[in-house]
């Protein structure tokens, strides 16, 4: 008789507990089924009316039912709590597509970016970095570079002059001369900087940027020059970009060469940027002319060296696909902010 009663009570409690939605309802159910006035409690009080031999078994059964109800209450309390938490979290959901609070940092000029990259590449290859004056004398810009006074490059129309023998440097080779005057070989450095030519059109800027490299030591060969150019091109433009050098003339190098790289746009197939040649001219190079060494008091029998020069602006244009040199100096913020 008691068995069925107990089962019924537990069954009913189970249903009501499962339906409870909050803590308050659970508290009410707790007192209904386990409180002083609950049926289970009442049954426990009845225990004294039973024959002694039945008492233990009866007690155990009632206790078991109580435990069961307790367990159900606890389980449901956990569920109710979790549901409340989930609900609160859902209510806190926000629009994830709205823009974040970012730092509005500015941008380095693309020329500066390439300038730094050049410095970093060459410094990683053991080069030092030398600086020099923009305003130079004729000796360092021309004479010392094996450019005699009647050379066409010295004509006034190409060069900005300050005084008769003072000018705006036309190349950063001036720095190389100065370092060779102030230091002894071995030396291995680059000189990035601003140069000037009296020239102003779509493809020429009167002020432009260049990096030149000079290595002087015993046993420096043409192979070292090719090597460094190859490494540089691949580091700057990517491992798949090939380069070549072809004969040319510069007054201060012998043999002299111009450096070409495979067109970064068409990869050599031919396009408007490379004028369908598949190649882009990058700069000049060569083995330092013994005359240059002799003039500076460096033993040209003992030492050999190579030098090369590259246009920073041109590299920036190629790297960032900038079609017109003038954009570099217009400083339109809509242009500048593209290179963050």
């Amino acid at each position: 008789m008691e068995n069925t009663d107990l089962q019924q009570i537990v069954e009913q409690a189970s249903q009501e507990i499962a339906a409870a939605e909050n803590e308050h309802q659970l508290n009410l159910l707790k007192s209904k089924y386990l409180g002083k006035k609950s049926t289970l409690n009442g049954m426990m009080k009845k225990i004294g009316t039973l024959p002694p031999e039945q008492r233990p078994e009866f007690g155990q059964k009632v206790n078991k039912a109580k435990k069961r109800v307790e367990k159900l209450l606890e389980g449901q309390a956990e569920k109710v709590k979790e549901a409340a938490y989930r609900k609160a979290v859902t209510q806190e959901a926000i629009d994830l597509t709205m823009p974040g609070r970012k730092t509005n940092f500015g941008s380095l000029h693309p020329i500066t970016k390439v300038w730094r990259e050049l410095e970093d590449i060459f410094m990683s290859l053991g080069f030092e970095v030398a600086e020099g004056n923009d305003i130079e004398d004729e000796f360092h810009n021309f004479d010392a570079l094996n450019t005699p006074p009647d050379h066409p490059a010295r004509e006034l129309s190409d060069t900005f002059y300050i005084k008769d023998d003072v000018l705006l440097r036309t190349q950063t080779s001036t720095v190389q001369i100065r370092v060779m005057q102030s230091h002894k070989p071995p030396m291995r450095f680059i000189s990035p900087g601003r140069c000037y030519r009296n020239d102003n059109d779509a493809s020429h800027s009167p002020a432009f940027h260049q990096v030149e490299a000079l290595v002087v030591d015993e046993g420096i060969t043409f192979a070292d020059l090719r090597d460094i150019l190859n490494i540089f091109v691949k580091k700057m433009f990517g491992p798949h970009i090939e380069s070549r050098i072809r004969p040319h003339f510069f007054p201060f190098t012998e043999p002299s060469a111009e450096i070409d790289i495979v067109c970064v746009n068409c990869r050599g197939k031919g396009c408007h940027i490379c004028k369908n040649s598949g190649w882009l001219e990058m700069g000049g190079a060569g083995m330092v002319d013994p005359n240059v060494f002799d003039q500076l008091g460096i033993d040209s029998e003992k030492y050999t060296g190579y030098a090369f020069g590259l246009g920073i602006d041109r590299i920036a244009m190629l790297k960032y696909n900038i079609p017109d040199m003038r954009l570099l100096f217009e400083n339109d913020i809509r242009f500048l902010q593209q290179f963050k």
Partner: protein
Amino acid sequence: MNISYNWLKEYIDLQLSPQQLIDKMTFAGIEIEAVEELGKELRQFQVAEIIEKKPHPNADQLSICLVNTGQEEIQVVCGAPNCKSGQKVVLAPVGSKIGDLEIKKVKLRGEESYGMLCSEKELGISDNHEGIMVLPDNSEVGKDLATQLGLNDVRYEAEITPNRPDLLGMIGIARDLSALLNRKLQLPVAEISEDKTPIETLLSLENTEPKLCQRYLARVIKGVKIAPAPAWLQNRLRSVGLRPINNVVDITNFVMMEYGHPLHAFDYDKIVGKKIIVRRAKQGEKFTALDEETYNLNSSDLVIADSEKPMALAGIIGGTNSHITAETTNIVLEAANFHYIGIRRSSSHHKIFTDSSYRFERGMSSVTNEFISKRAASFILEIAGGELAKGALDSYPNPLPLNIVKLRPSRVHKLLTIEISSEQIKQYLEALGLKQVDSNEEELAFQIPSFRQDLTREIDLIEEIIRLHGYNNVQTFQKPQNITDTHRFYARRRVQDAAVNNGFSEIINWSFGDPDDLDKLQLAPEDPRRKTVKIKNPLGPSFSIMRSSLIPQLLKTALYNIHHGQEDLKLFELNKVFSVRRGQKLANEELQFSGLMCGLAQPNIWHTKTRQVDFYDAKGVAEDILQILHITNVSWLPSEEPFYQPGQAAKIAYKKLIIGNVGKMDAKIAATFNLEKPLYLIDINLEKILREIKTKLPQFQPIPKFPTVQRDISLLIPAKYNWSKVKKAIFQINPKIIKNINIFDEYKGKNVEKGWRSISFSLQLSSSTKTLTDDYINNLIQKIIDTLKNRFSIQMR
């Protein structure tokens, strides 16, 4: 590995002080980790002679000795029964120390004593405390004891790299030094006279593990007398940190320390069956070692056994069942070579690490056995007496041929760049014990001695050559030229980065300037920027000078952008400006930083309320730049630049140097550049900073151990006092505790009287020595308020 300076000198005439020797060993690749001066303690005691002994009048146990110290005759009270007149004894003079006890002039039962006659135990020489130490009659009175006993020495603790087990003995070290110093190595000789009894009649040998035991050589000596070893031998062992035990064991240890190759001695009479068996242990076999631990052996352990029991864990430790005791009269002397793999396995498995296992697990030679066995035997015969059985039992199943390694002198040059003749190469390598066996012009062939198993390839020989030739004798070719001005190089990048992080975009303009712009900026005639460098053939009149300021072009760039609808601008240029250098052909070229801000401080974005830029935005940028250049202690004073609005522009002063200006551009002047909106400029002479200000890198400051406390204060300040004055006054009150002052509000207007302003700030307080209490903080705050009231008539809000 411990090395004794004196011992080393037995084999090589060093001609080096102990200190010089450290350098030589270091460059031979033997790293010295510690140096200990031996005998130092004993140097305070001296040899003295008892001239007269008479009984103490007040004590039967004591006697009074008149002692000659070599300099004077003194009275010493002595309690030792063995002291006699005429003896040479050891005196601890007044002022010397035995342990912590200082010897003083004392009265003993009414008789004065000027020192103490010492026992060997008191001197720390042995455990002998039966009376005072008595020295031989020929001892020199007055000599210090360390010298008398030959105990002045230097012990080096060397780290021997695992490839050089040959350096685990004095001779190996001496050989390297001999090669390095080009000085002769004096190798010991061993002469033995054998008895008529063939060893085979006394003992037999079975080696069942030829792989693990590459060689086993045994000799038998009958009739030895076990006793303490002579003093010189004990001293040698002590000098390398070994404890003397008895003559035979000490001799095996001596030869081990000499040749780096361990030996062992067994008590012949304990060998059951008179047979030595080299075998693997049985699984679970019990063995009690000399460390008095009992080990459970397993089948991967190699043991030296007799017909019944293991007597030693091969190459690692001997057993108590067969070791040399005072009763031993007949011995077996073992000189074996065990494979390093087996030794390493057993030693690490049983966690037994001995001088022997340390050496065997690095790989020993199988050739030296013969010699060291003779060497040890000859010492035993000499010191412990006895008869050496004829011959030796020698199991050497697979004699290793000596390796030949070929070397091309051209390769030496190719790798090391040094020019070194074949003759020199030969000299270096033969000094190391190699032997040239063949040579032609291209190639030399060398036989490698058994103790240099590490030399197997040409490159190994090249390493030896350069080690002896001297690493630092190799010429270097690249010299850093210091062409790069590193400070300038990075300062420039850091300033650019600071501006970019502040939202600025970098612009690059040509270097040509328009002279009219300098008029527009109303620069005074004497302003250095008026001394411009003029171009003879310019592009046009407005490009006819080299710019002396970056500002005109900055303004023009701003105008260009405003015309294109971009009104919120933060622009900077970091570039050269030029001016005439008086009396010089070339010009001044200086790095300048100039920035411009106008419009909104931040883009107008939904979540962040924005505002127009103001002076403090511009100042913040300048402060950031100064901070990353590590410039502190600048003052912000009213600017004297003509093109700024007075009252909203500051010059940046570092001591007497003006390094820049920050502020609002004068509206009327801006209008001459067709700019209508408020503009803020930052103009910093980077050249001046780089040239004239020496800055230091930030140096680490300990993180405070005690918590930082924050207190907020609001004040009303008369407008005539600027913040920097107030701030300075606050810091001065207790700069050790007041770590930071952070203004969080400034207010003028309603509820604040005219001529006053309200400033609220938080103080950050912490101490490096204690946690600040409320009382302490309240007192400090009260002090701050009182000071400010007195000095600036400031009121609390």
